[in-house]
């Protein structure tokens, strides 16, 4: 970069401080967190000052910027180059680390230029916190650590920086001597370079370079480490499996074989960034669900935001480009009230994680204008070392543009969207490693900050280019950056890259850094040279930066140049097929859990309230209201409906064409506790729950596609045995319903190692998502009761007494039989439900999941503003809790106008008439003609709404 010579006075960084005139809601929010979450009473009040540092302009220009852009006299006031508050008892300032992109900076530079202040060369913004009262230094540190700053991306600024521009000269690419290394030296190299490759893999690389008689370059080694990482290479899913001594088909092959059998409604599966199902009228419906556990564990806001950003790009980068129409989020955390002493070293508190992860998903989805309308949150103590952060996205794509693009020889390789910086280096390999107490400090460069607006305008440009027929192939830059995106796209067509052409955020990056950086909001497209001008015209009009960084050569090599040097020359065959197939042993041993003591019910209201107020059952409405679930105008069945719009629905229906009634439905299921007790039946439960959630609103299960996400501990013998069983459960579900899995993701690093080497295995999570078309969205139902005096029926075979892993016996205890889903009977049942809902005879429907029938009935009654009167007589001589709290998936409560409707629709499937809705707003249960309890709905509702209200106030 050339820096214009300047006079000294111009080079000074000018400081502008802006302070709210009145009460600042942001400061009040922080203050209330200090008091309620941290329990620090010494802070009486708090003021937040926005600090802007501006480089290259005069004080007069700063005043101009303040008056016209950075301050508004009605709301705030400002000072230049001095303090705005001098009376605080304690003060601290938090800013981004140098090199971390501050999204606001680009907007300020643009607006300054619009105002005619073109000499502004760099800008940064930060927050000053002024504390009043008697907080100790220790209090301030705790406030910083727990609320205000994430060390991986932010610093406490002790003094003003001397410059805001990062200068540097790119170091040249180096060759790395490996030909003569011993086994232990190879292992050390893998460790030092953060390659996360095992000895066998390092030896394959050594052998290859011995055979071509040269040392590898740093770029080549990095490329191999990225492509061969567990994250990108899915080594475990492709491995030769020996289960209990017998060889079994590799996991990925089993899934794909099942998909092949049931591909009637599949447009694209497992080959592209997302799976695509048939929607209607020549349109496809694509789906992808991703995990961002490792980044979210150390920087929850950025980790979750870029998780969303990444999965949106997967949808955008499928076929020749799709529009994202739905976003989903599924999280697993330790309980927010976990005591500090329970927190493993180097881990962030679950309450902080929860709030920040939600904020990240909120800010990215809302800014992109994508409705976030389906999700769930699960709590279990063993997530204290690492949360599971699962984000999904669904898209609309013309069928004729839905197949993965194939670049042709001569096509240009274009990088578009965000610039490349040092952020996210080694994200792919880092995600593949287990977490330790040091992870948070060592791997900070693997964390990225998102800029949703960059992604939004890039999407606008891609959709315009797609509709103009300009895109031959497209993919996103995700894990592994350019190395993975380009390497994969050019597997057949061969690639020549000129790395110096990639636009950088700041100078000084080494070629290997540019090559594997995981900077956000970047897409790679293949364009026919004849379309270059038109493509760049579209990008220019929409303020999107794009650069030709190479071309497809027709040769079978991945060749990367940096200026005049060849920094990487790898045959595609070695890169993609050189990785030796792993042979892995699997053997699951049934864990012996202490048998849980059955809770004794002395007071039904108290027990019922406890179940409704459990973190795993309670209302998540305060979170859902932070997400814009109505943007795009497509919401047909929103997350919450009912008299007071606070009763949850099973899944979401959108009508992506505003002038048509074609619906698209999305739902999901997971249950970490059941998965931990029994990987097979827990997984059957998860898949059944996913299907039940979409069937309950009226979907035809035969048209659905499924997505699997395995978030599993490191695959040692035992965990791999569990994974094998979980996958078998997926296949069993696929075979039972004759529907395919079309996309999936495995993340096998849910393991934490304490400093003393003790290992904590985080509960295995199989999250299954179900998505598909709804022929007519007007023929769907919500979960809220529509009237009093309706008939209530239980549809499905409830596993009475199967309380293992249920909320009722408390999720920490595992003992007892877990609920087994009656898979065989479900296709007929789902069919009957679909027919019943489509005919309009079913007024409301809600499935049974966490909290059992008790929770289902309560939620339906909250929505209807009516009560419930049921009898347990159809279940025989049982304890009431064995019915009310059994969490058998694949069972439903339906509201019917009369008993004859049940006979009409449910003659051939398990169906029990259990009672009626009542005008009186209480839930009454009787057995043998005797009332067991009556509880006011309102009492249950308060207990159910309280927990999240306390966290999201």
């Amino acid at each position: 970069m050339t820096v214009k010579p300047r006079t000294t006075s111009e080079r000074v960084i000018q400081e502008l401080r802006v302070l709210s005139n009145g009460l600042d809601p942001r400061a009040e929010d922080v203050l209330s967190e200090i008091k309620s979450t941290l329990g620090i009473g010494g802070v009486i009040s708090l003021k937040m000052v926005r600090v802007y540092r501006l480089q290259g302009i005069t004080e007069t220009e700063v005043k101009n910027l303040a008056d016209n852009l950075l301050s508004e006299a009605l709301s705030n006031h400002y000072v230049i180059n001095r303090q705005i508050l001098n009376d605080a008892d304690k003060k601290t300032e938090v800013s981004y680390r140098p090199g971390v992109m501050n999204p606001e900076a680009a907007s300020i530079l643009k607006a300054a230029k619009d105002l005619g202040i073109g000499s502004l060369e760099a800008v940064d913004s930060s927050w000053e916190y002024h504390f009043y009262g008697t907080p100790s230094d220790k209090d301030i540190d705790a406030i910083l650590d727990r609320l205000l700053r994430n060390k991986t991306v932010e610093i406490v600024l002790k003094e003003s920086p001397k410059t805001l521009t990062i200068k540097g000269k790119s170091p040249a690419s180096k060759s790395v001597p490996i030909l003569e290394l011993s086994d232990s030296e190879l292992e050390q190299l893998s460790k030092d370079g953060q390659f996360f490759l095992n000895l066998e893999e390092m030896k394959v690389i050594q052998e290859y370079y011995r055979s071509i008689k040269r040392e590898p370059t740093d770029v080549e080694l990095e490329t191999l480490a990225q492509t061969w990482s567990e994250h990108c290479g899915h080594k475990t899913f492709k491995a030769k499996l020996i289960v209990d001594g017998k060889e079994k088909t590799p996991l990925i092959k089993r899934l794909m074989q099942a998909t092949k059998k049931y591909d009637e409604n599949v447009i694209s599966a497992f080959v592209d960034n997302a799976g695509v199902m048939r929607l209607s009228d020549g349109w496809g419906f694509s789906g992808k669900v991703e995990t961002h556990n490792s980044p979210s564990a150390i920087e929850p806001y950025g980790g979750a935001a870029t998780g969303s950003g990444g999965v949106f790009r997967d949808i955008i980068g499928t076929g020749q480009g799709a529009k994202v129409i739905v976003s989903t989020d599924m999280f697993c955390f330790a309980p927010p009230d976990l005591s500090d002493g329970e927190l493993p070293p180097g881990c962030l508190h679950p309450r902080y994680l929860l709030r920040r992860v939600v904020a990240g998903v909120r800010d990215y989805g809302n800014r992109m204008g994508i409705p976030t309308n389906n999700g769930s949150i699960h709590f279990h103590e063993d997530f204290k070392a690492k949360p599971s952060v699962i984000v999904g996205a669904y898209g609309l794509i013309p069928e004729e543009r839905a197949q993965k693009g194939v670049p042709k020889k001569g096509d240009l390789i274009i990088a578009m969207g965000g610039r490349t910086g040092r952020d996210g280096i080694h994200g792919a390999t880092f995600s593949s490693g287990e977490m330790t107490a040091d992870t948070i400090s060592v791997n900070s460069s693997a964390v990225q900050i998102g800029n949703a607006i960059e992604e939004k305008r890039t999407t606008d440009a891609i959709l315009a280019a797609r509709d103009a027929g300009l895109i031959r192939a497209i993919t996103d830059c995700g894990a592994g950056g350019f190395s993975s995106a380009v390497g994969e796209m050019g597997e057949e067509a061969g690639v020549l890259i000129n790395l110096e052409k990639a636009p950088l955020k700041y100078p000084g990056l080494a070629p290997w850094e540019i090559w594997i950086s995981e900077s956000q909001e970047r897409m790679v497209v293949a364009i026919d040279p004849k379309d270059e001008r038109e493509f760049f015209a579209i990008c220019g009009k929409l303020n999107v930066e794009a650069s030709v960084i190479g071309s497809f050569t027709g040769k079978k090599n991945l060749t990367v140049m940096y200026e005049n040097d060849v920094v990487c020359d790898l045959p595609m065959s070695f890169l993609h097929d050189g990785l030796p197939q792993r042979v892995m042993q699997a053997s699951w041993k049934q864990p012996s859990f202490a048998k849980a003591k059955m809770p004794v019910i002395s007071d039904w209201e108290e027990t019922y309230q406890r179940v409704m107020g459990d973190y795993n059952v309670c209302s998540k409405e305060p979170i859902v209201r932070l997400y814009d679930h109505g943007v795009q105008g497509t919401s047909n069945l929103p997350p919450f409906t009912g008299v007071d719009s606070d009763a949850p629905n099973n899944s979401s229906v959108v009508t992506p064409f505003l002038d048509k009634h074609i619906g698209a439905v999305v739902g999901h299921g997971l249950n970490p506790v059941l998965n931990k007790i029994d990987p097979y039946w827990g997984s059957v439960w998860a898949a059944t729950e996913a299907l039940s959630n979409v069937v309950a609103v009226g979907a035809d299960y035969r048209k659905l596609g499924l997505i699997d996400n395995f978030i599993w501990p490191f695959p040692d013998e035992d965990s791999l045995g569990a994974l094998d069983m979980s996958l078998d459960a997926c296949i069993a579900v696929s075979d039972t319903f004759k529907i395919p899995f079309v996309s999936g993701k495995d993340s096998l690093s849910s393991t934490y190692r304490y400093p003393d080497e003790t290992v904590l295995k985080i509960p295995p999570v199989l999250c299954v998502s179900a998505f598909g078309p709804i022929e007519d969205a007007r023929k769907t139902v919500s979960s809220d009761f529509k009237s009093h005096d309706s008939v209530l029926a239980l549809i499905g075979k409830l596993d009475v007494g199967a309380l293992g892993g249920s909320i009722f016996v408390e999720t920490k205890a595992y003992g007892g039989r877990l609920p087994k889903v009656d898979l065989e009977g479900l296709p007929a049942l789902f069919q009957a439900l679909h027919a019943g809902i489509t005919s309009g005879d079913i007024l409301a429907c809600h499935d049974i999941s966490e909290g059992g029938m008790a929770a289902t009935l309560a939620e339906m009654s909250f929505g209807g503003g009516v009560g419930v009167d049921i009898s347990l007589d159809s279940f025989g001589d049982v304890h009431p809790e064995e019915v009310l709290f059994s969490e058998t998936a694949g069972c439903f409560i339906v509201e019917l106008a009369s008993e004859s409707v049940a006979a009409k629709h449910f003659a051939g499937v398990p169906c029990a008439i259990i009672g009626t809705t009542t005008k009186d707003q209480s839930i009454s249960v009787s057995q043998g003609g005797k009332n067991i309890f009556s509880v006011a709905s309102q009492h249950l509702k308060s207990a159910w709404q309280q927990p999240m209200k306390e966290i999201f106030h």
Partner: protein
Amino acid sequence: MPNLASVCILRTDGTNCDEELAFAFSLAGAKPDYVHVNQLRSGEKKLSDYQILGIPGGFSYGDDVASGKILAVELLSFLKQQISSFVAAKKPVIGICNGFQVLVRTGLLPLSRLGDMHATLTNNDSGHFECRWIELTPTSNHCIFTKGMEGTKLSLPIAHGEGKFHADNDTFKKIKEQNLTTLQYTANSKLTQAYPQNPNGSLYAIAGLCDPSGLIFGMMPHPERFVTPYQHPNWRRQMIDKPHGLPIFENAVNYAKTL
């Protein structure tokens, strides 16, 4: 075939409610056209070719610094003349959510003084973004967008983090004298300051305002998200004769026909 009123749906980086706004205008009988601010700056398109200007919701330029601020600066820097002429020609302007924030930050609302800001929309009292359906009552009798709707009870969604309307006393006096308050948050038809019925703590429960001519209108709620019955969250519970957002667009289109 009569000429349909053409609507400039103004877009820029981070605009995201443009498609539903265009759909609402086409249902109301107009011809919407997506116009990127760059196209107006370059002269490729001209604001004067349109009868209605619609600034949709979203997060223009990420709402960096303050919501709608960067776009407002851009409009004032490059399109002041085009906008002045548009307003002088008595053509209607509507800004929804982020569009409202832009109109306020350009000074067009509430006093129609381009480049001179007299009010602001600032952080919700709750300190966070909020998405929910709320009750509103149109209260002005001279805003062309809400003509004939005075006193009715509307149900519309809000989705914003910076919707609290605030102005100095002098401006509030003018707002009152000239009857510029167009839409207010209500609970059972009574004005409310209570959360969440008044989702942001807006003074005088102001949800929407017009300028003294009644032709420039801004509102935080999203009428374009309720132009078909099935967009209402509880369409399964209640009969909806006419979606509550649609008349706002029909009014604008009917007015434009008289131009």
